[in-house]
């Protein structure tokens, strides 16, 4: 009798062990961490751009006093991005995520308008400070692109891993992870502002 119940326990533990190895528990956890890390990079690159704006506005202001409107638009867009409360679980929250994307897109389009205006001021374009800022801005826009692409890649991997069988069962029963939001392509925002000499 005793030996029999021991037997059943053993068979059960074999079953559970083999089930755990194939249920994707670890894969899903790892992929979620990947998404989190990629999102951290996205936020950091956007923050970097925001930190550049005040200097840029100052330099442009000194040469292009008549472009108040464009400059105000940039400052306002920056304030809007700065005032935004980014919730911790933003990658799970479609509404907060699209708000974030919208605010950053506003910033991008305000900046690209400013860069078009700058074309009319040769003195400004020749200014070393401005040239330096332009390099920094270009570099930052490129980093944003790279970070966004990598984030989307990580999201794709994660979303796939929680939807396929048998991971979806494990997720429904144990983990309760939800799909993450990717960046959607939008005209204007995906491209860095075109700056030409």
């Amino acid at each position: 009798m005793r030996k029999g119940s021991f037997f059943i326990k053993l068979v059960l533990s074999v079953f559970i062990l083999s089930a755990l190895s194939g249920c994707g528990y670890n894969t899903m956890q790892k992929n979620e961490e990947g998404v989190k890390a990629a999102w951290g990079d996205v936020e950091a690159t956007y923050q970097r751009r925001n930190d550049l704006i005040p200097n840029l506005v100052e330099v442009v202001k000194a040469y292009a006093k008549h472009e108040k409107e464009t400059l105000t638009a940039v400052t306002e867009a920056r304030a809007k991005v700065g005032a935004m409360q980014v919730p911790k679980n933003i990658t799970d929250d479609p509404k907060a995520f699209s708000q974030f994307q919208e605010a950053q897109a506003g910033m991008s389009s305000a900046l690209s308008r400013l860069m078009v205006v700058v074309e009319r001021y040769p003195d400004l374009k020749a200014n070393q400070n401005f040239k330096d800022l332009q390099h920094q801005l270009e570099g930052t826009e490129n980093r944003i692109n790279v970070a966004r692409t990598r984030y989307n890649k990580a999201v794709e991997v994660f979303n796939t891993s929680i939807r396929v069988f048998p991971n979806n069962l494990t997720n429904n029963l144990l983990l309760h992870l939800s799909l993450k939001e990717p960046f959607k392509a939008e005209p204007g925002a995906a491209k860095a502002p075109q700056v030409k000499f």
Partner: protein
Amino acid sequence: MKKIFLFFVLLLCCLPFTAYGLDVPRLEGYVNDYAGMIHSSTKSKLEGALRGFEQSDSTQIVILTIPSLEGENIEEFGIKVAERWKIGHQGKDNGVLFIVSKQERKIRIEVGRGLEGKLTDLMAGRIIDQVIKPKFKQSDFDGGFIAGVSALISATRGEFKAGQRPVQRKQRNFPPFLTFLLFLGIFILILGSLSRILGGIAGALGLPALVYLTALPVGILIVIFLALVGLGAGLFLPSLFFTKGSRGGGYRDHGGGFFFGSGMGGHSIGGGGFSGGGGSFGGGGASGDW
């Protein structure tokens, strides 16, 4: 079967996003002159300088010239090449990629994450504007490359020191595999001591599961083979172990060595020639044209 299939689906998703656009050329050495812009004497001079710099500072600077971007953005092409070539050492991320596209007259300096502190976007931009561009404008490409490379070297000197070689990736696969194998062996022994069939089932299930867990790149045939080996091991290993008590230890060691060999089959990484060391890039750097 389903698990294996899933595993490959996931693997497919992990492939880098390089399937479209301009192909990334092969990494041949420090100077990859596909556009034929650099004189051969200049090329050997540049290669000597860059090799010396890597030996002293471990920082890798690599030059690439291409005839045309074929409509692609140089920034996108740059990060694609950086992700493929993995210039710089793993953990240090100290690679610099100096890309020139002849037809579009574009220059890009792609900076690895570990060098972003010294070779900032600003610094890279100034090197392009003030050092490389003036020479390129006069069609003095050799002079431009030499001046650009020496500016890059002086900007990044001292950030890293050559020395301890970074740990090889290959070696990291061993310990978890061995640990699992040991656990599996004990598990099979316990089950097998109760019943031979139970031990056989445990071996047949356990060995493929173990290989799946440690994510070794094996195909379905090998998995089936492993299941058979596991079945055999589960059936006979315990009986040998328990009937011939004192000599069992030697048998188990032998079995371990055997599994080890079969598990690692087809896992060798082709060496030889020049290669990147696994450095990562985050899109830092600057672009310009002449």
